[in-house]
């Protein structure tokens, strides 16, 4: 994975290069530059410690542990760290981090404690409020089939939910324990009872 999480070695550029070589990726000089440009990543350590626990709590609220592992076990917080630190534009990062700050401020104001220290019921109420605040937002890329290269200024809750869902269902745990994943099906059966498969496919179709 090219998500840069955790402590990076001294030479950021070299670290990224060796990651790329290990993965067999052909990294163009420009990609190495883009990924290793400190200006593109505001946070030298991915995200401040104060956010780490909060992101864990929020990830698990969106996709909790049930009869299968939840978001934390699937590595979603690390995925979110990688995206927010190294993939988001400054404006997108600002929306996301401001959303975290706002949640904590609401927690302090309403319950006199940081969000992570609230009861699950209180956490859910505040996150539902964030969802309500985002409900007016209309995305225009809902059915986009192509890569969308544009900056996405959707509000905090939409960003959080998308990150947790993508991070979870593209993880090994989410794809193969929660859903069905078969990289080498060997046949195509077009019309079979759902009960033969059981759960939805994690990777679906020719894309």
């Amino acid at each position: 994975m090219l998500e840069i999480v955790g402590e990076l070695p001294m030479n950021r550029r070299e670290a990224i290069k060796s990651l790329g070589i290990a993965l067999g990726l052909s990294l163009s000089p420009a990609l190495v530059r883009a990924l290793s440009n400190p200006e593109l990543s505001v946070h030298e350590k991915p995200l401040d410690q104060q956010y780490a626990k909060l992101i864990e709590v929020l990830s698990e609220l969106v996709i909790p542990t049930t009869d299968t592992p939840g978001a934390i076990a699937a590595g979603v917080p690390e995925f979110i760290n990688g995206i927010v630190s190294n993939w988001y534009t400054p404006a997108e990062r600002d929306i996301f981090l401001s959303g975290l700050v706002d949640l904590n401020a609401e927690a302090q104001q309403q319950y006199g404690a940081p969000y992570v220290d609230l009861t699950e019921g209180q956490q859910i109420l505040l996150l539902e409020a964030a969802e309500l605040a985002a409900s007016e937002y209309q995305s225009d890329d809902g059915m986009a089939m192509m890569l969308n290269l544009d900056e996405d200024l959707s509000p905090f809750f939409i960003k959080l939910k998308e990150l947790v869902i993508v991070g979870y269902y593209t993880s090994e745990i989410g794809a193969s324990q929660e859903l069905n994943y078969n990289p080498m099906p060997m046949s195509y059966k077009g019309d079979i009872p759902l009960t033969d498969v059981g759960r939805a496919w994690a990777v679906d179709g020719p894309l």
Partner: protein
Amino acid sequence: MTLDTDFDAIVVGSGISGGWAAKELTEAGLKVLILERGKPLEHGKDYTGEHTPPWETPFRGKPLRDLYKEEYPIQSTSYAFGERNRHFWNNDKENPYVQNPDKPFLWNRADVVGGRSLLWGRQVYRWSDIDFAANKRDGHGIDWPIRYKDVAPWYSHVEKFIGVTGQAENLPQLPDSEFLPPMEMNAGEKHLKSAVESSFPERNVIMGRAAILTQPHNGRGACHYCGPCHQGCSAGAYFSSQSSTLPAAVKTGNLTLRPNSVVSSLEHDPVSKKISAVNVIDSQTKESMRFTGKLVFLCGSTIGSTQILLNSQSEAYPNGLANQSGALGHYLMDHTNGLGAFGMIPGMMDRYYSGNRPNNIYIPRFRNLDGQDSDANFVRGYGFQGLAMRGNWSLQQKMIPGFGAHLKYALRQPGPWFAALMGFGETLPQYKNSMLLHSSKVDRFGIPQVAFDFEWSENENKMREDVSKQSVAMLKAAGGQFIISGQEIEAPGGAIHEMGTARMGHDPSESVLNAHNQAHNIDNLFVTDGAAMTSSSCVNPSLTYMALTARACDYAVKQLRAGTI
């Protein structure tokens, strides 16, 4: 060591057409040189993104936006582009063309041995006489110098080698191929077929025909239904020149393949009236080189081949090689493309599928088949590629409100059925739609950059309205709900079916090539890629490029042996 620079035949390009030229010419005993401008790529070994699970894909497949905007703004518009196969694609920054913001034209290109045959959609359909006679029938463009009967045996020849999955349907507008067993429709598609065919008796919903093996064939493995062919297939289950024609050519011992070889121009000898040399710049060393061959086959893609001809000027051909007609660079076509309609199909909630089928369903042309339809305000027609699938987590994440266990359980089950129909419409050949060489901008090799002057015309716009209307009607017939219909055609070039610019014709005063893809009055020059096309049909063109290439090779070899070339 002396560099061998003299060959029986030189083939420019190693993609769908070039691979076929190399195979046919080497198998006829000719010593062949392929000049490929792209980088070397080894079949199998260099498919580094093949079978990569999502959790090992950089940013889980999210686009590297800064990089793509900076270096791949054109290529990244394709669905097939991504981190798992970016190394197959052209770098737009390194290899630019002139884009007119008021008249955009998308030029998708590969930059490796194998060319776009690695990346193509693999749909293969024979053209019919409705296509070959279209220009003559309605007067748009010049008549094709060939008909279906001239190409039919070559379609068979090609299909038997590449392997085509499909079902015989006996439709006059879409002749059957030599088929391997068809792939199966899913429950949603079967329902759509039955609903559309009963509501619209003249329409057919058929299984897609694709250059994918449903059983082992000619030493290549059958499809294992992993899904994304365009990341490369080391089993060789889809046709690419890498999996099929190039290995066959190598096996003869007659092939020399030179990657990193940018052809800048061809030299014309006014005395012999033949091509006397091919000028090449090595993309790595920038060294200039010169190769000679008795035959020259241009298979560098529609735009690439014509760029070479336009850049080959001489006293005899001051406006570009083989351009005594003035047609060179003109009559550029693509297919109109874009969403026809997308909607939810209720029911069948107990039916599902397994495996990732790299193929779609197809609705062959049903408009203006036997003369002009009374309710059509356009000429020619269109077909649809389509599919049905059940909603998955990706499609449904924004439809299910809330978070927590209920969201997780909801995404665990496949959602309702959805169906999509994408229209591909025939484009008229028009002089004003053209490519040209820019007067001052050159690329890193000093070769003038290509510019485009292309706009959809009234006929394409009216056809597009009908695509939208008819696709909505068909989804409605299948009980579709929440139907979204595309209102706009994609920018030209977006179908990646660019054709024309060196068209075939009877008359040297209005065409570039004769009925054998041979340049009028330049006996040893053949152009057998999309540039040769005289009209665009509405069906996917690659199979026809392959058949025309094999046919032209047969002709050229016979002429060479007879001493007439």
